């Protein structure tokens, strides 16, 4: 099974990074969360209810709907905050990428550890720009709001293709598919990772080194 990979790219001002990431991550998680499962006899189960909450961004002209779960919001905010700090520490022309990966756990026999098999990865590439004056910032507020709207439409389009989703698990396997640690909602198992590219483009320099080495080796 191939992992589905989607890339979104945004260009924002440094103070907009947090809200832009929250907007996109929460939009994806809204679609990838269900209510809590309650298993009954005979293999049936019932599902709890997912509420939604509108959030107005302060630095972007944008409002997004997210899952009404403070626990989930805390987890996402923590990850985004770490990403933002890493981005700002890297330098003024920071570029970075935050990835939201949905995976399934596959139980392996001892002594092998469980395998994590991703089935959908969302990569959000961020370019941070610096703006000179308030007028530019105001224009940026509106532009970034429009861009985020386009990204939300992209996300919705991908999700509504209804491509692979893990099968609904039995009670014993629910933790291999869903994150059951939250009290009120149940997202698919996910992890958030990020990487920072500095202005010199570390990845670029790695490639160059390799090229030179290869050339010299000939």
């Amino acid at each position: 099974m191939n992992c589905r990979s989607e890339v979104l790219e945004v260009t924002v001002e440094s103070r907009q990074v947090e809200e832009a990431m929250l907007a996109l991550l929460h939009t994806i998680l809204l679609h990838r969360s269900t209510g809590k499962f309650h298993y009954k006899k005979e293999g049936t189960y019932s599902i709890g209810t997912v509420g939604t909450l509108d959030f107005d961004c302060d630095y972007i002209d944008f409002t997004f709907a997210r899952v009404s779960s403070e626990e989930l919001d805390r987890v996402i905010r923590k990850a985004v905050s770490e990403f933002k700090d890493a981005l700002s520490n890297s330098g003024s022309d920071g570029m970075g990428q935050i990835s939201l990966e949905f995976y399934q756990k596959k139980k392996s026999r001892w002594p092998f550890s469980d395998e994590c098999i991703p089935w959908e990865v969302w990569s959000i590439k961020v370019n941070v720009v610096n703006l000179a004056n308030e007028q530019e910032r105001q224009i940026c507020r509106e532009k970034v709001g429009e861009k985020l709207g386009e990204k939300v439409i992209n996300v919705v389009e991908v999700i509504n293709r209804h491509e692979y989703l893990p099968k609904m698990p039995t009670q014993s396997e629910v933790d291999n598919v869903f994150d059951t640690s939250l009290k009120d909602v149940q997202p698919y198992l996910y992890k958030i990772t990020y990487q920072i590219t500095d202005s010199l483009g570390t990845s670029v320099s790695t490639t160059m080194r390799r090229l030179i080495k290869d050339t010299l080796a000939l």
Partner: protein
Amino acid sequence: MDRDLSPQDKKDLDKFIKFFALKTVQVIVQARLGEKICTRSSSSPTGSDWFNLAIKDIPEVTHEAKKALAGQLPGIGRSMCVEISLKTSEGDSMELETWCLEMNEKCDKDIKVSYTVYNRLSVLLKSLLAITRVTPAYKLSRKQGHDYVILYRIYFGEVQLSGLGEGFQTVRVGVVSTPVGTVTLSCAYRTNLAFMSNRQFERSAPIMGIIVDHFVDPPCSGQRPATMGHPCNYRAPDEEDGFAGVQDSQEVCTTSFSTSPPSQVGCTRSFLASFTLHIHQTAKAIVLHAGKEGGVLLVPAYPPHGADAHLTVEHAPNTPGSRYISPDITSTRDDGRRSASPTDPVEALNAFTRKVGAFVNRPVTQITAASLDLPFAAFAPRGLGSEENDPMVQPPDSPPCPSPLQASLHSQGSEGSGPQDDFVMIDFRPAFSKDDLLPMDLGTFYREFQNPPQLASLSLHISSQSMADDLDSLPEKLAVYEKNIDEFDAFVDMLQ
């Protein structure tokens, strides 16, 4: 096509599509109320939340949706549409977007109804929640209030997009394949907002707002914004029991997941935005004034000093399927003389315009003060038989090229005046006008003061006089300077 579908599956599918349609309407209309939506997640299934989503049901909206559906389901060639439009306080309206729930012929026989279709419809509703915050009408709806309100209209049948203007954009929310067809949800939204800019609505409160008068605000609720006007109860004209439709919405959302019966909550968060039209007894004569912001305000002919009488309009449903609430323009003249308002605001507004005000070019005989029932009519200028004393008719200086304002005053004053008190006059006192017997009009004032007299000190004979004096006093001054010559020398040395 549904031969292979079991009766139970067919029944379930019909129910899913019906409730999906109703929830779709709720999500769209609630997203255009102008407020942030917040519902709680619940880990325990209640059985009342269709598609495992907490979407509240506003009874009036459900009622309208069911009325539009009239027992049918969205099907091939039969689409359910929710049209969102904006209506200004001046009565102009414009369609902003149309949400369409359609069904096409492409079937997926193998799909499981009670599991896959249900879950996919749930995902589609989540997508709708996301997309409704992204289209341009969302921002407009959040800013609705005094200048405009938002309307919604639900209809069933063929999709009508002609009202969206040229260059409208379409965004597809999503599709769900079912054994009887593919459900498609999309939105077509207007991009050409030229109407707005022509009307000078480039303020923070842009044009149209959606007028939604379906929502009754409970007295204790503080959630409804103050700009939405006074609450009023929605009365369905053809139903006595109002929300009879609520009964069958209490159907159990039977899925393989949820087994407990639903308990449909009533109007927990219902809104009603409407406003009450009160016509002042005293404000029957109306003068049209250009409003500060380019709009037109209706004000009474004789406002008390400094007070503006505004109008609040009470809406009565006058078009089936089209509900609106105008923004609340509250009256500041609460002098206890509010009369009972007519139930039809259109009629009331027409009644306004039929009244006669100042500067109206009407033959004298048609208008009398008595027929106007003016406030302070007793104070209106009488004895206008002698037109010579009437400054409005014959201003002091009639220039050869009158200013436009003066020309209009001329024409209206001369035509309108007469022996009777046949029109209302407002003394027009421009700034700097002389405070004497003849109030000067602006044109005269301007011409007079365009060429002011020269300054006295600059006039020739005065300057020559002073020069003669200067010459005479010169010898004395020279003597004084010679006496103090040492001081002057020391001063010069200091400077060097």
